[in-house]
């Protein structure tokens, strides 16, 4: 059915809005999931009581430290602002297009490596592509669903110099060093990051360890061609 006319109302988001909203999000503290009171909560309550009783001069810096958002997304996402290695900033407007893999491969300036093996039951989703203006950072993002979940995501960034990853364990993916990270805390997400040296692209595979094991994640990465 020809339904192209119904997309007439779709419009690009203003880059200024994208950047301003992201900057505002950085100032919003994360709301912690509520759990029953255990030993850790008891300690927190004690600390909060001390804070509440403290003088403003002491209380303010303590609260500021506690309320600093843990998730400090790389630079500013949506390619709006990226902090590079030299701590300079690259600003890129947000323009996302949604493609299938063949369309994506036609539009990017490097050979896109994709898994040739996946655990059973994973279905691919669309690819979101942000094509960078000259000299800026681009991003390609996609995921695989299983039922109601997205247990696996692939993000590709280029040029790779804009990506900075923490290192927990170094592993080898197709002859190249890769960083394996298991995030502490409630999410527990696991990820592999490596740089395709010959292409100057950074690949990040992120998985829910309840659905995809570390071994499976390594296997998926190893089959990327």
């Amino acid at each position, binding site marked *: 059915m020809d339904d192209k006319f119904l997309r007439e109302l779709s419009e690009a988001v203003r880059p200024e809005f994208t950047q301003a909203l992201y900057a505002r999000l950085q100032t919003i503290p994360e709301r912690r999931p509520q759990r029953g009171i255990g030993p850790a909560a008891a300690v927190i309550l004690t600390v909060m009581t001390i804070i509440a009783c403290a003088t403003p001069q002491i209380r303010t810096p303590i609260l500021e430290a506690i309320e600093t958002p843990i998730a400090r997304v790389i630079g500013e996402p949506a390619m709006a602002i990226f902090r590079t290695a030299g701590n300079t900033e690259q600003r890129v407007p947000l323009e996302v297009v949604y493609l299938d893999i063949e369309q994506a491969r036609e539009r990017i300036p490097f050979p896109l490596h994709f898994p040739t093996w996946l655990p059973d039951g994973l279905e691919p989703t669309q690819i979101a592509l942000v094509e960078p203006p000259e000299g800026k950072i681009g991003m390609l993002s996609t995921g695989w669903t299983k039922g109601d979940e997205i247990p696996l995501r692939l993000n590709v960034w280029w040029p790779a110099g804009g990506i900075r990853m923490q290192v927990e364990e170094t592993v080898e993916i197709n002859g190249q060093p890769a960083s394996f990270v298991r995030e502490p805390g409630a*999410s527990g997400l696991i990820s592999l990051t490596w740089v395709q040296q010959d292409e100057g692209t950074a690949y990040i595979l*992120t998985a829910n360890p309840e659905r995809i094991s570390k071994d499976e994640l390594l296997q998926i990465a190893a089959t990327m061609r």
Partner: protein
Amino acid sequence: MKSLAEIQEDGSHATPTEIFWAAVYAEYLPRVYNYFNYWVSDAMTAEDLTAIVFEKAWRNRQRYQANLGAFSTWLFTLARNVARDYFRQPQREAPLEEASKSAAQDSIEDVLTKRENQARLRVWLAQRTPRERELITLKYGAGLTNREIARLTKYSETNVGTILHRVVGQLRKQWEDHDGR
């Protein structure tokens, strides 16, 4: 080009959550924005409502990350609630209608520009039932699949497909009839 080792030596870091949210922001901001853009007739309001959704999502990101569930379902549930809250305010009902009527008057002059095409579509969408309009909005504004829409609205996927097929057919006929005048 920097090597991974050089990148690691920068001393800064990004966690999987950070990477996940960077991707989510890039991918879903336009979808949420256009979800509201199909409901309201001015970009500023669409931006304001989009901001509310992302602020809610951002505050609760740890709750979502805990199970890495269907992100679009979670995010658009927030968006639907924000839309309901917006239109629940009495003064919000009339402006939508008035905006549509105003846009319709403008569109008489020239049906060839995108702005006027939009005006036509807004008028026609405003004439649909709330359910039909929401399905169109989720499909073409938010870019969701029928399966995602079904999950979100609790209609069956078949029902979503049937309604959309019928409504899109009727709208297309309106579109073609108008073009053919």
